[in-house]
């Protein structure tokens, strides 16, 4: 069953807006940019709710227990339930609701999922053997993570591997494989927690956590000190070391120097441990971190580009022309069976092409600027442009899945193993197809709005980061033109993808 794509009228509107915004930015680049000084609302309503949830142990514990129970139900359904993907809770909930909805939650609550993640919760219970309070450290070997893997490269490799499993081997339509993947993540989290200090899995290895972390740079909430002066005077650093009762920061963050959400797991340990009650959740402009606060790193830049590339590749594999294309390519390379070799080559190409385009745009920018900025520095600094483009396309794409494929999920709650169920008939598929969560017009509005918002943030990133990276203060007109053209190209590509009819996930 195919979903209809975004109507051309919407795409045309977005296209016009993209051109207007680009011209406006080119004109604006001639003037000096004033870095916005942001005053955040320290005690906003969502912030107060999240502070209470994370600071009050029982609520967080209840939420964790509920999610662990749901995770175990998913594993049980996957291993012992029906192999029909649309009739099994494991596949329907994991891939149609959780995987698609997870990206949507980042837009509202940042990395809060990491605070209640069942993989980490189960690992913590197994290794620490405590439900609440700080556990003695002698349950883990507390080794330092080897320097060579102290980066996001392991998470990036696992993320590419996860995409390969998801799209290449058809993991999303296999309840048993879905359950095995969930168990494998628990095993990895447990082994990592038993061997390494703090939560090395969350910081270095978890592909989902790192994806959430990077996307959280665009979230409208952040966990920060209410008064930076209090942190400057603090000598005990309870947020970093923990207290007798509260665990230390799982990802080695000191609140006084925290400027980005990337590695924050929203666990709220710092909120509970700070003796001055100086750590708060607060609202902020959603793009401020990607635009100016986040510090560029080489490995993180590569992760951002991979996010952009894989988001687009994900979309391509759900188009009808993908089937024909991969079939022809398989014959060209002499591939047979499930065409895994052809898929793997296509995946590598899907990663390489956007990276090469970006590298070329950076090189052109450097050449036009005619100044001695190190290529690597420019590459890392401008890579934040990939973040809003990837995030908003990912959101728009997943919104389509959630809205069109969530129907019928309640029947699975009452029969999670799908006992006695038959595959969906064409009539049932048609009925589900027609039963949208929201009206199609609203869906198209949101999708078009998201793509436009992503492009606007990308321009802001280029403007502010370009101003900072390219010496001389005032950018001479068209210096950033290659990067703007790149952003236009990706936005156009994402719009085109959204306009195509898309295959249902299940």
């Amino acid at each position, binding site marked *: 069953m195919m979903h209809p794509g975004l109507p051309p009228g919407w795409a045309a509107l977005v296209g016009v807006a993209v051109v207007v915004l680009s011209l406006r930015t080119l004109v604006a680049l001639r003037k000096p940019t004033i870095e916005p000084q942001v005053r955040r609302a320290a005690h906003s309503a969502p912030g107060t709710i999240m502070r209470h949830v994370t600071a009050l142990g029982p609520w967080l514990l209840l939420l964790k227990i509920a999610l662990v129970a749901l995770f175990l139900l998913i594993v049980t359904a996957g291993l012992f339930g029906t192999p029909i993907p649309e009739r099994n809770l494991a596949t329907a909930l994991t891939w149609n609701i959780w995987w698609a909805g997870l990206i949507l939650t980042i837009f509202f609550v940042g990395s809060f999922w990491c605070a209640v993640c069942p993989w980490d919760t189960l690992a913590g219970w197994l290794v620490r053997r405590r439900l609440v309070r700080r556990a003695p450290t002698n349950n883990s070997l507390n080794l330092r993570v080897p320097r060579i893997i102290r980066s996001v490269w392991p998470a990036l490799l696992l993320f590419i591997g996860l995409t390969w499993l998801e799209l290449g081997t058809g993991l999303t339509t296999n309840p048993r494989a879905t359950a095995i993947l969930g*168990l494998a993540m628990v095993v990895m989290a447990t082994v990592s927690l038993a061997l390494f200090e703090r939560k090395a899995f969350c910081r270095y290895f978890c592909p989902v956590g790192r994806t959430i972390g990077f996307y959280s740079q665009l979230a409208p909430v952040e966990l920060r000190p209410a008064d930076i002066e209090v942190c400057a005077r603090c000598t005990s650093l309870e947020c970093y070391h923990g207290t007798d009762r509260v665990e230390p920061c799982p990802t080695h963050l000191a609140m006084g120097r925290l400027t980005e959400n990337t590695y924050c797991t929203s666990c709220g340990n710092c909120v509970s441990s700070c003796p001055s009650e100086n750590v708060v959740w607060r609202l902020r402009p959603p793009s401020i971190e990607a635009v100016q606060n986040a510090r560029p790193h080489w490995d993180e830049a590569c992760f951002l580009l991979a996010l952009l590339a894989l988001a687009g590749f994900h979309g391509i594999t759900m188009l009808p022309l993908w089937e024909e294309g991969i079939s022809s390519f398989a014959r060209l390379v002499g591939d047979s069976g499930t065409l895994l070799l052809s898929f793997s080559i296509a995946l590598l190409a899907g990663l390489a092409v956007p990276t090469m385009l970006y590298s070329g745009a950076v090189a052109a920018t450097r050449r036009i600027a005619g100044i001695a900025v190190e290529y690597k520095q420019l590459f890392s600094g401008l890579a934040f442009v990939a973040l809003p483009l990837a995030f908003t396309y990912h959101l728009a794409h997943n919104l389509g899945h959630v809205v069109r494929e969530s129907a019928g999920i309640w029947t699975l709650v009452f029969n999670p193993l799908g006992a006695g169920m038959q595959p969906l008939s064409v009539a049932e598929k048609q*009925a589900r197809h027609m039963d949208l969560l929201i009206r199609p017009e609203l869906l198209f509005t949101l999708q078009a709005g998201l793509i436009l918002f992503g492009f606007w943030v990308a321009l802001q990133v280029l403007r502010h980061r370009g101003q900072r990276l390219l010496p001389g203060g005032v950018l001479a007109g068209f210096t950033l033109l290659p990067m703007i053209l790149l952003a236009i190209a990706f936005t156009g590509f994402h719009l085109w993808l959204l306009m195509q009819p898309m295959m249902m996930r299940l």
Partner: protein
Amino acid sequence: MQRCKLLKCASAVAANNTPFIDREEKARTLCGKCMTIVLTDARVAQVTKLIIVVAMLGWCAPTPAHHVLGRPAYSLNEDSNTPPSMQVEVQIGEYLISYMVFPAFPRPNVPGRINLYAYHLDTDEPLTGKVTFKVREDGWFADSEEEVIGTQLPDDNVYRQGFVFKEDGNYIITAAFEADNTPYLVDFPLPVGNTTPIGLLGVVIAILGAVLLGVSIAQRKRLARAKVRTARQADTLDARSSNDMGEL
């Protein structure tokens, strides 16, 4: 103009000016900080409103349900023209093979059927030769001996092969044919009855148990070594202090 009570612009600029209210030329520096403060505060408010509106739009009424017409699944069996089925498609060499099993989940001692379609990728011409269906058990320690179920000719471009399995288990069906002097072998998985993956859970539990036990033993040894080291250091200190006392 409505008077502002927040005066955030004044807090941002030097000389405590209130540029948006007091427009006199009083030590203006044109630094622009007042504008960014006002703008970003307004942006926070706008974004908050946007989030609320989007969240409210999420509650829009769903579209009305449509009636589902058709034959109920319980009235179908493996000989029905549209029975429930599991379908697999693979591409091999010059052919696209579609394989369907009826019923979707075969059970022991219940008759089932395999339908196989083979089309040439270039010409869309169906395969016309014979197809031999074989079966063997699947699994690491399974018996690898194959048994021929039957050899079929196409009937209306479909190769139909009936089967009845006696026991639960995971099986591999092999479809073998020859086209353009090239032999083709295609393997398809076929689970019959309940095949519970207890072995897999055992592997997971064994890995977790081994890691936790290993870490626990290593930690105990560490602690024991630390205790011994502390005791030796204490002995050395005692010996030194008694020597010192003796010298005195």
